[in-house]
């Protein structure tokens, strides 16, 4: 082994140990059957519009619906992910949607200019079921996002969840002096 290979090997062992200890501290998370669905949620860039917490919301581009407040059933979520939503920015994620398979009973010709955009990745049926189960278990019906949910989503390698710690969820501003010399 070269020095670099040795180092990489050591790093791999360290990583394994870290993830093992991390997992043992989070046994609930690691045994969660919707972990795979969470991975799809990340991989298919659902977060790009719905955000990690699923609340979506208006902003610079369109207005992604809140998956926390959604009333869609499992089957409806599966259909929406597979087919997108015509005339909105919600992409379709099944190869051949509106072509080899119809969506909402419609073909591409029926949808016309309302054809939804194509997702950045195509998902297999079991991926779509997994992401729907993840949304049902961890997103739909939940209230405001909290620190534990955020850590469950991102793990602990980023400061992204700090803002959800108790006491920090105040309006992000102050009205202190306009120009300060220090």
């Amino acid at each position: 082994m070269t020095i670099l290979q040795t180092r990489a090997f050591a790093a791999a062992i360290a990583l394994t140990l870290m993830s093992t200890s991390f997992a043992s501290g989070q046994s609930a998370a690691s045994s969660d059957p919707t972990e795979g669905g969470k991975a799809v949620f990340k991989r298919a860039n659902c977060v790009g519009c719905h955000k990690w917490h699923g609340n979506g919301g208006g902003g610079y581009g369109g207005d992604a619906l809140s998956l926390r407040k959604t009333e869609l059933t499992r089957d409806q979520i599966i259909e929406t992910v597979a087919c997108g939503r015509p005339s909105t920015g919600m992409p379709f994620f099944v190869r051949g949607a509106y072509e080899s398979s119809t969506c909402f009973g419609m073909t591409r010709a029926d949808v016309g200019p309302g054809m939804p955009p194509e997702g950045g990745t195509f998902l297999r049926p079991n991926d779509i079921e997994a992401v729907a189960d993840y949304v049902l278990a961890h997103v739909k019906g939940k209230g405001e996002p909290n620190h534990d949910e955020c850590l469950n989503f991102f793990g602990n390698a980023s400061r992204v969840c700090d803002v959800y710690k108790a006491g920090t969820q105040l309006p992000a501003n102050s009205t202190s002096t306009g120009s300060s010399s220090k």
Partner: protein
Amino acid sequence: MTNKVSYLPGRAALLATAAVITAFTLFPARAADTVTQERLLNSEKETGNWLHHHKNYSATRFSSLKEINKDNVKNLKVAWTMHLGGVEGGGIWSHGGLEGTPIVENGMMYVTDGWGSVYKIDARGGKGTLLWKMDPKTDHDWAGAVACCGVDNRGVALWGDLVISHTLDGRLIATNKETGQVAWQRQVADPDKGEVITGAPLIVKNMAITGVAGAEYGIRGWIAATDLTSQKEVWRTFTLPGKGEPGSETWKDDNKAAASGGGSTWVTGSYDPATDTIIWGVGNPGPDWDNQYRPGDNLYTDSSLALDSSTGKIKWHYQHTPNDPFDYDSVSENVLADVTGPNGVPLKLALEADRNGFAYAIDRSTGKFIWGLPFVKKVTWTKGLDPESGKPVEYDPKKTVQRYNAAVSPHRENKVADICPGNMGGKNWPPTAYNPDLKLWYIPVIESCNRITVEESVPEKLKPREFWTGGGPSQPFKITGSVTAIDVTSGKIAGKLETPFPNLGGILATPDLVFTGQPSGEVTALDGKSLQKLWEFNTGGGVNAPPITFSVDGKQYVAILVGLGGAWDKWFIDSTPELKNIQPGSMLYVFSL
């Protein structure tokens, strides 16, 4: 090869250290490579270098190099290229892009990628050699989730023996120019509040001046100065007044709207040494499209600000779109130009091409309006500017909520409105260039309209790290672009070259040429007077960054970063469907004869 020297253990480190010592012996740091205020003031004397983000303190992006000229530019070809990194996504972004301006000093080039890695490249000898890469390990999810408009970093500045840069997650970083080791760093902006940094620093008198992004996330904008010796903050000037401060009377609501009212400062400003004044543009008010939430003129949003460089105190301001309901930022760079006016009067101007579609010349000693004109083909939100004040003719200072052209303005009773220019503006951050010989000012234009849908804002919706926009845009209309030249002596349009796509990269001017690019991949050279296309090369990526020029070993080069990212391919792509074919990328192109 990130900081390889410092992380290798044992024998490898010793060997690497020896290699560095050898390198120092071969290429000892020269006194000429120490950047001083004197050199920054006289950057135009270093004709082969590109020392400032905007080339000089006046932000002209004009180089006097003319080995490449209109007679021979047709022979321009690729000299060398280099693949860079930083394409990976984070937060709400699927990938990063390149918006940076390279800095070149004595044959050494410094560029950044979207996540703020700094690359030092030896550009001597007709080839490019990467000497080091400083990866700041930006917190992708923390920053990327609150970056409204892409994984962007617009470049570095040089000071002493340091390379000064920003990261999206709010840091100012000083890196040793020779070794690539981080000398020190300081958290300047706070992503927990929705603040990120995309702009390059401006160096003035041993201070790094930093602007902030986040007007779509309810920030209270600021411009901050950090002492580069003590590493401490010298001043921080908020762009929205605190309670009782001048300008606070222009926030007439009961919502404390000024505390989260935007006013970001994410484009590098300019500096007038004659008056020791920093001139810096301020972004839109928030919530962007619900101006009834924030009645009043909303100072100093959508304004150009003049600041005393030593204290940060505001000397004057000029506001372009009071109580803005359109997202018409005034973050653009102010170009400092001295011309003789129509009556033979010498004018010291600050030129700004605003998102609202109008180009403005302001007297930079007083902040008074001189002239303004539309530089886009289509403006619908106003019938024009008042010739005396420069305010939109519909502006009524007695009203607390402005309607402008009420038929097309978005507001709570007109929730879906089509506006021209669209909310990305007639010109966004991509920089203009000014040729002081021809007195022509070249604007990279987005010829656009788009649709705004208003959503009424209520205080309960204001949350840290969540969008605070009062609605959103959509793109039912095709968007194109142009390079538009303005004769600064007359304040009239001198020429317009229309382009199939919006100009998302910006402009470089040389004595008789203009260089620019297209998001569809082309880098082009135009005749500086006629704007006729003289040369074109397709990079195969999307141009989203401005070209520069430099010389080394007596030879002139043109350099440009290529990699479509930013706001366009997430938020605005439906207006340019052909650009969906442009793949993410990260590449440096360098051209020569």
